[in-house]
């Protein structure tokens, strides 16, 4: 069973399976310029804020996720797995890529 991930302020929605990270689901959409980095929670390029829904995580580098980030659910998309439909805000390096029309990217 897959869940639907909605990216706020962009109209982008995609299906993501529970065993698939938010980043790999997003990457599958083929949006140009999505910053796919290490995919292992080490480099910090894929930060998102989860604004609604349930999910599980795997270990991610605390160099890029502070206590405050954890409390605010600002996490690395390559280490977040949906367990319900999710709404997500893209922040940091992802924001420009997802929320800018393809022609302007």
């Amino acid at each position, binding site marked *: 069973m897959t869940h639907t991930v909605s990216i706020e302020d962009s109209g982008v929605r995609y299906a993501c399976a529970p065993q698939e990270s938010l980043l790999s689901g997003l990457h599958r959409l083929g949006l140009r310029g999505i*910053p*796919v*980095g*290490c*995919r*292992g*929670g*080490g*480099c910090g*390029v894929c930060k998102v804020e989860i604004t609604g829904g349930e999910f599980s995580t*795997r*270990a*991610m*580098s*605390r*160099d890029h996720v502070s206590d405050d980030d954890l409390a605010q659910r600002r996490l690395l998309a390559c280490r977040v797995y949906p367990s319900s439909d999710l709404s997500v805000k893209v922040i940091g*390096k992802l924001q420009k890529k997802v929320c800018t029309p393809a022609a302007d990217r």
Partner: protein
Amino acid sequence: MALTGVLRPGHAQVRVLDLEESVRFYRDVLGLVETGRDAQGRVYFKCWDERDHNSYVIREADRAGIDFFGFRVLDQATLDRLDADLKAYGLATERIPAGEMLGTGERVRFTLPSGHVIELYADKHKVGNGIPLVNPAPWSKARDHGIAPVRLDHALLYGPNVAEVHKIFTEVLGFYLVERVLTPDGQGNAAIWLSCGQKVHDIAFAEYPEPGKLHHCSFLMESWDQVLRAGDIMSMNQVAVDIGPTRHGVTRGCTIYAWDPSGNRFETFFGGHLPYPDYETLTWTFDNFGQGLDYPQRKLHETFLTVVS
């Protein structure tokens, strides 16, 4: 003997987010040989053809990246001399007692102005490569387990003050500059490749605002064919691949960049030209950095400049 002073890269200690997942990756996918675990929980590896006890050590931590990178020096007198030379140059050094790392003698440790911790040591237990010293076979069965590189070859580290780092390696540690990429204004070096012997590089640095970052640790393959085989094994195991298989313009080495399960980049590397210390440095202008990185595609992949651990 012509090769004296600093002989070669000897070890890297890298932080991982999940120890057992990483052990499985380094042992069964990369195909390193596990040589021990210590009371701190660190796991020690070497490449199949390396003779010393360890070259790659991992430890579980809450962040990825590199703890330190170490070089083997010729002997104890060399270690003492380089320690004194580093101090005379104005760097603080520290002695880590023998045995703090398994199978490893006393280490001299110092921190570069780029934020990286570098170590020197003169002694590491010779465990051998599983092939007898008399009438040796050219390889052992260990060569076929996983990607199975032959040795830890070099590292590329990202941090500030590369010009200062360059001076320390050339003026104190006896390295020479093999290749460099100029900054966009052509006035400085954006990246430097340094050798302490006749390898195309033993360590490299690139200018980056955050200190102490790891770009990659590199493992040597025996042929281009073995690099392609490494790529097959990465895909079979869903390893996150960054760039390649391709050939660097800088060094002429054949390469794949990929990431370990914690987001530490590593490289499977083959080839490169063989410089001597009297050779002139090869220079790449910044607008040709794309060819320097990926010669056939002439592409300055964004991840090369922005993704580090």
